[in-house]
Each structure stands twice: as C-alpha cells, then as structure tokens.
C-alpha cells in the first residue's frame, strides 16, 4: 500500500511545483500586459495628438481664408463673377 501512495504524493508535488511556476509566469504576463497597455495608451494619445495636429494643418492649408489670401496677395488674382450658363 505504501508503495502505491509514494508515487502519487511525488506526482502531486511535481504538479504543485509546476502550477506554482505557472502562477508566477501568468502573474508576470498579466503585469507585463498591463504595462504594455499603459504604454500603448500613452502612445495612442501621442498619435492622437499628432493626428489632430495634422488634421488642423490640413484644414489650415486647405482653408478658403488662406487660399483667398494667397490668390490675392501672392498671385494678384481678382474675383471674377461667373458668366451666365446658356
């Protein structure tokens, strides 16, 4: 009977040890995942800042106010009324 219990106990000890390592590993992964998430959140906000800056710049470059200014001051253009479409 003793011969039967010893391998079972040994096997259980091995399993417990293995699971302990797994727990440590999972905890480490959770924490590194959390840190990655934190890092990506900041990176996302940084990219969002950049996106808004580019969007605003695009609007500024395309804005009718700027085009009008360029046309009048730099190119010396004048406003012509559209002719009648017949």
């Amino acid at each position, binding site marked *: 009977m003793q011969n039967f219990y010893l391998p079972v106990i040994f096997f259980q000890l091995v399993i417990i040890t293995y699971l302990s390592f797994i727990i440590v590993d999972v905890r480490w992964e959770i924490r590194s995942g959390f*840190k990655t998430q*934190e890092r990506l959140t*900041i990176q996302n906000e940084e990219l969002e800042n950049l996106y*808004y800056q580019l969007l605003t710049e695009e*609007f500024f470059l395309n804005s*009718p106010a700027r085009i009008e200014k360029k046309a009048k001051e730099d190119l010396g253009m004048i406003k012509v009324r*559209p002719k009648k479409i017949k």
Partner: protein
Amino acid sequence: MKIYYKNWRLFLIFLFLFLSIAAILSRMVYVQVQQGNFLLQKGNNQNTSERIIEFKRGSIFDKNGIPLAISITGFDLFALSGLSEDDFLKIKNILKLKDLEYKPFNKKSLISASLSFEEMRKIRSLRINRLELEKTYKRHYPLGEQVAPLVGFSGRDGYGLEGLEKSYNSILTGKPLKERVLKDGARSAIQRLEIVEFGENSRDIYLTIDSNIQYIAYKYLVEAIKNNDGTAGTVIILDNSAKEVLALASYPSYNPNNPMRSIKKNRAFLESYEPGSIVKPLALAGAIENNLISIDTEMELPIKIEVDGNIINDRKKYGQLKAFEVIKESSQVGATQISFLLGAEKLIDNYKKFGFSKPVNINFPSTSFGSINSRDEISDIEIATLGYGYGLTATPFQISQAYAIFANKGTYYDFKIIKDNEFQIFSEQIISEKTANDVLFSMRQVIEDGTGILAKLENFDVSGKTGTTEKLRDGNYKSSSYTASFIGIGPNPSNELTIFVNIDGLGSQKYSGGSVAAPLFKKISNDVFSYMGYFNK
C-alpha cells in the same frame, strides 16, 4: 547522578524549545486572528491604491470632419518635497528652464506645465523619485472667433463653460473610471486588481455646420459691419432639405484660445429684437390662409392713415397695389390693412404658428424666444404695428426657421445643429403649399423690382424680404440707431437654402435693410451657392 544531571539539562532544553515554539505559535495566532485584517489593510495600502482615469474630452467636428474643438494631451511636472538641487538642475537642463532657480521644495510645487510626450519621456528616464508627472488636456479651437459664440469653450478643469461645450458637456466629458491597482516599489501601477466604479467613455460630436460656409458668412458679416459702422450682426444659413444649420455667425466674437477672453453672446439664439418689415410676408401668409385675401387682391392705399391718433405713412403714394406688391414695396399702410383684416387674435395666433414666442428646439445654454404683445384689450395701433414687425420680438434663429416654412411647402421643421440620427425632427403643416408658393412669389418681386433689389444675383433666382427697425431704448424709438435685416430663400426653384442676415447698431446715414443687409445677403449667397455647386439660369 551524572545521568540525572544529563536528563535535567536535556529537560531544560526541551522545555525552552517548547516554550519558544508555543510563544511563536501564540504570537502567530494573535497576529492572524486579532490583528489580521488591520495588518492586511496596512500592507494593501502600501502596495495598492485607487486611481481615477479621466477620459480625454471628446472633440467637436463640423459636418466634414474638420476639428472645431480638440483636446491636446500634455503633462504638468511637479516637484515633491525633498527634491535635491542636482536633480533639479538635470530637469532644468532638459526643459531649458532659464528663469527658474532652485529653492528647497517643502510641498508639491509646479515646475513646468504642458510638457510634450518627448519631454515627458526624457524626464521619466532620469528616474528621479521626488517628481510627479500629471496628465493634462489643453483645449484648442482651430477656427477661433469664427465659431466661438456657437462652440463656446471649456475651462482648464475640462468643464464646458459656454456654448455647445456647455450644453453637451456630459457627452463630451464621459464619466471617469475608478480602479484599484497594485503598485511596485517605485509607486507605479503594475496590475489592475479591480474596477471600483465603471466609467463611460467620452464621445465626439459632429455639427451640421460647414466650416467653409461658416467662413464665408463670418467674413462678409464682419466686412459689412465695419463698412457700415455697425456694432453687431448675425448670419444664419439653413439647409431646408436636410433641416440642418449650415452656418451660424455672430459678431462681435472672441478668441476662445485666449485665456483672457471676454465672452460675447451668440446673437442668433439670444438677441431677440423687433424684426420690423421682415414679418410682413408672415402676416400676408396668415391672411391668405384664412381666405381673407389673395396675392392678386387690389388694395387701395392712401399715403398715410391715422390710427388711434398716430400717423402711419408710406414713403410714397402707391394708390392701388396688389397684395403681393405690398410685400414688394414693403408698404406700412398695406401691412396695417392686412393686420386689420386678420384681427388681433388671428394675427397673434398666426405668428405663434410660425414659431414666434416659443422656445427653439436647440440644446444651447440660455436661448431666448422673444414675445408677442398679446394683451386682452389690445389697441388698434398695437394691432397695426404688429403687422409691420413692432410690438413683438424674435431671435434671428426663430425668424430663419419661420421663413424656412415657405421653402418647405408650408411645413414647419425644427432645424438641428448636431448630426444625430436619433434626433426626431418635429414637423407641422402650418400653411398650405399654395400659400407658401404665393408668399415666395411675393418675395421674389422684392428682389426683382422692390426694396431688396440690391440682393439680386446675376446667376441665381432668389426670394427675399428686407426689414429695418428703429431700436427701442429707454421706452422710446431712437431714429439714430437701427437694425437692418434681410432674409432670402434660394436658389429657385429648389429653394434649398434660407439665408438670414442682420446688422445692428447702424447710424442715421445708411441703415435700411435694402441698402445694408441686402448687399450682404447678395455677397454671401453668391459665394455659398457657387461653393455648393448650384447652377441656375
């Protein structure tokens, strides 16, 4: 004896070991049972903490996705007590803070505000313990004063203080999330333990405003006010088919990006004024709808009439005019006769149907909705003046919505300013399609050969009406201060846009709706129709 001696010493050792183990065990039991929760809490307090995650304030965009209000993330750098001079100098070098000198920090003090992400990373890489970086959001308004009275602004705490920023604050802010986190030795979070309070993400909002049309409206409005020595003004452009507001310019304005801004009201929603002759087509619509008159009805008009001892006169003797010509010439005597035909009750009821003295269905802080003189014993002169726009007040937005009824075949619609599919547009048939077309015909004559001839466009057919109001000050009408208004619907035949303009605070030199507001309407409508790709004629 020797054995006894040996056993005695062994006994003492065992006894000592036994007592020691018993003492340790009892201490363990005491710590676990009696002080367990207290110590657990102490430990948790050292390793865990609650943190509040505020969501970045949502942005406001125009209908084409152009940003009108955006939040830029930055970082404020604080020194905690005990920050050494060496560490301070390192920070000073990185941030190039020339004017800041070291002094011992006894409490949390701001070193530098609105750091960029790059600066934040450089500071973090120094691994200085006595520093704290706090995330902040700075609000930017790329269109500045063009849309400031509409969009408003939010404070440094991220709370909307004016305009749409205020009325849609809860959507733009969301609800902060509260969570418990595990911290490492450097006090930075390493794991989320639980969510203490669920948050709600902030949302962006999209307006129905078109930035390009808004620019056209604002540019010409400011130009006209300055050229005519006015003090203020409003332009409203409505898309009659989509039931949306395309532009809403109000002057004077302010720069929302400047922390020292002085707030100016949105005149489109807040400035209720006596509209003057601009209401005459509304009275005519009421008379036609009640079968009291048709647009071809001949009316005998003396140059002046006396009502309750007051003289109401026209600028010339018209003799006989058809009803539509009363609108074309903007005859005061004719409008008085139409008022008397309708009578006080029907006239007031008619104005109310057009939305006057009723709140507008726009979520905007403190909108005004005007009033109508509706006393029980209303005198004849009061009825007469109601016919040509005195004795009642309305905001530019109410007038614009009222005129959109003619473009929408007699149906009143609540116009929206936010792109929201869930928004239920209220609609109600106010007048018949025939009456609406008759009034539009009358208004077209105003442009062709009437008081609004300066609003006539070379390439587009439009309908319109002028309005000139003497301003009421201290109970008297001052003939030295006027408001000039013009409202037009076009381009015919689609009639997709309603454009309202007014200029306030005009002097006695040039002040009429026909000479000041009509040319402004012409400039705006010409550019807007071309921008929107309309080709007529």
